[in-house]
């Protein structure tokens, strides 16, 4: 790194360097790897099994729809949510449990830089797991059909992939900020995480104003393929117009920035006690 680089940037890079390896290559995170690898394995299996059939029982459109469902119901509400919880909540809480956070607090490092370095490391780890997973699942799910290639490269497939990747990154940004704060502010981050999970999942049944106070409602609006709800759910849910992209994307980024800033302020006031 050059000598001209400001100190705070070098410090964030140093925190990032320490955290990135620890976060991505953690033995305790095996279940997060499973969450990311599971859908890829299922899509691969689906492609292999279906390609051996002489007459596939479903169309290319079914695969597109199936992926949209998998993305919204499994990835957004399950894998990315819980994956981010596992990664970001342990950035601070994990170090408190292991009694190693004081090493950071004893360096001439602004706590804001510590929070930024940890958040960026968590973000890169989460994106490194879930972006390839989403991309691979989409590429594989229709791999049994020769028309899938045309759909991807000459049809709307690539653009849809781009949107899915964007939504995945935004989900990691949003949920990451939420769980980073939970990990620092709560002794047991599972409790606020459970509350967030319930809130995000009952969201479609809430009045439209309340629906806007959630990450999932903005992410759902950015998904390129709509998922039709089966009856009787389609009657119960409150349908709202998707938030325009130019509001949803900067809005999510702004909320995440606010949460990370709040976490940084809390870290500045924080003490090391390890519950002793």
């Amino acid at each position, binding site marked *: *790194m050059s*000598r001209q680089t400001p*100190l705070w940037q*070098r*410090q964030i890079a*140093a*925190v990032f*360097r*320490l955290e990135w*390896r*620890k976060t991505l*290559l953690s033995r305790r995170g095996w279940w997060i790897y499973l969450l990311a690898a599971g859908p890829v394995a299922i899509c691969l299996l689906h492609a292999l099994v279906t390609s051996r059939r002489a007459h596939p029982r479903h169309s290319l459109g079914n695969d597109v729809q199936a992926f949209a469902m998998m993305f919204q119901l499994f990835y957004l509400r399950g894998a990315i949510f819980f994956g981010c919880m596992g990664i970001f909540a342990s950035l601070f809480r994990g*170090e408190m449990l*292991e*009694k*190693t956070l*004081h*090493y*950071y*607090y*004893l*360096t*001439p*490092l*602004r*706590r804001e830089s510590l929070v930024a370095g940890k958040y960026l490391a968590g973000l890169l780890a989460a994106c490194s797991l879930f972006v390839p997973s989403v991309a691979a699942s989409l590429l594989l799910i229709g791999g049994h059909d020769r028309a899938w290639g045309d759909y991807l490269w000459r049809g709307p497939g690539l653009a849809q992939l781009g949107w899915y990747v964007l939504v995945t990154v935004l989900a990691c940004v949003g949920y990451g900020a939420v769980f980073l704060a939970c990990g620092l502010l709560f002794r047991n981050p599972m409790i606020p995480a459970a509350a967030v999970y319930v809130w995000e999942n009952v969201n479609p049944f809430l009045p439209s104003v309340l629906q806007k106070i959630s990450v999932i409602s903005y992410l759902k609006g950015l998904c390129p393929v709509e998922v039709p709800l089966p009856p009787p759910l389609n009657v119960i849910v409150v349908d709202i117009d998707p938030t325009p992209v130019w509001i949803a994307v900067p809005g999510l980024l702004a909320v995440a920035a606010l949460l990370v800033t709040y976490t940084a302020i809390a870290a500045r006031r924080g*003490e*090391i*006690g*390890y519950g002793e």
Partner: protein
Amino acid sequence: MSAPSPSNLITFADVSRFYGEVLGVNRVSLVVPPGVTSLVGPNGSGKSTLMNLMTGLIRPTQGEIRVCGARPDHPEELCRLVGYCAQFEAVPKGLTGFQFIYSYLLLHGFGADECARRAREAIERAGMGAAAGRPVAAYSKGMRQRIKLAQAMAHSPSVLVLDEPLNGLDPMARAESIALFREWGDQGRHVILSSHVLHDVDRISDRVILLSHGYVVAEGEIQGVRSEVKEQPMQILVRCDRPRELAARLFSHDHLMEAKIQGDGRNLLVRTTDADRLYLLLNQVVLETGLEIETVAPADDDVNSVYQYLIGAEGGTT
């Protein structure tokens, strides 16, 4: 050693710290000059709380702390001055001894080469050169203690705070560490340490701070602290050729509490409430009787005695 000025003093001004309703330390006012200062007291007396306060890991409930002019709630300034080897044994997972020290040096803003040089130096100083490439997870308790010590010293802090730094060390490592602390203290740095081993405290320290139940019971140079303990007679050992005659002469004075002949019959252990008068009296006796005195030495102005007098048996220290 340079003369103490506010910029090289550690000051506590009416500092209290409570953990909820539990007292950590109460109304502590201290001025600590450079040199080796030991915090002594039983478990729960507030030693670690004082250390955590001066390193900014916790904040005072009331009062103000300055460490060589720096405020503990400004880590950017404070942590350049302070190195802390805390009581927590854990070290971040997955790092070798060298990586552990190198990675945290990077956070000080040193360049990569400088970090590597400092890390190597600190590791050598702690006698951990042979194990530097091994994962810290595979270290013994003593090795962990030494690598933590190396980490605390690697950025050459002017204030080194050490919570039970000799725990888990073998006798050789213990002797080396003590020599290192003395060397740092003699360089005009602050070395603040806590230890349960009072014999070691005696060997290392320029000053002691005795704590009990969150209060500072006494502080200062150990002889000064001992002389302040008026209610306990001073014990002075006199080695001379005619101890019986000396004892007979001394007993006519009211400040003398007890005199016992010990060892080979040439040692006289005297307990007195006024050591200064005893020394004058000894001079007088020598002049009048021609008594040959080999040595006169205080027998209980060590940390152990002061600890026993002021804190008693509650500490259970060695």
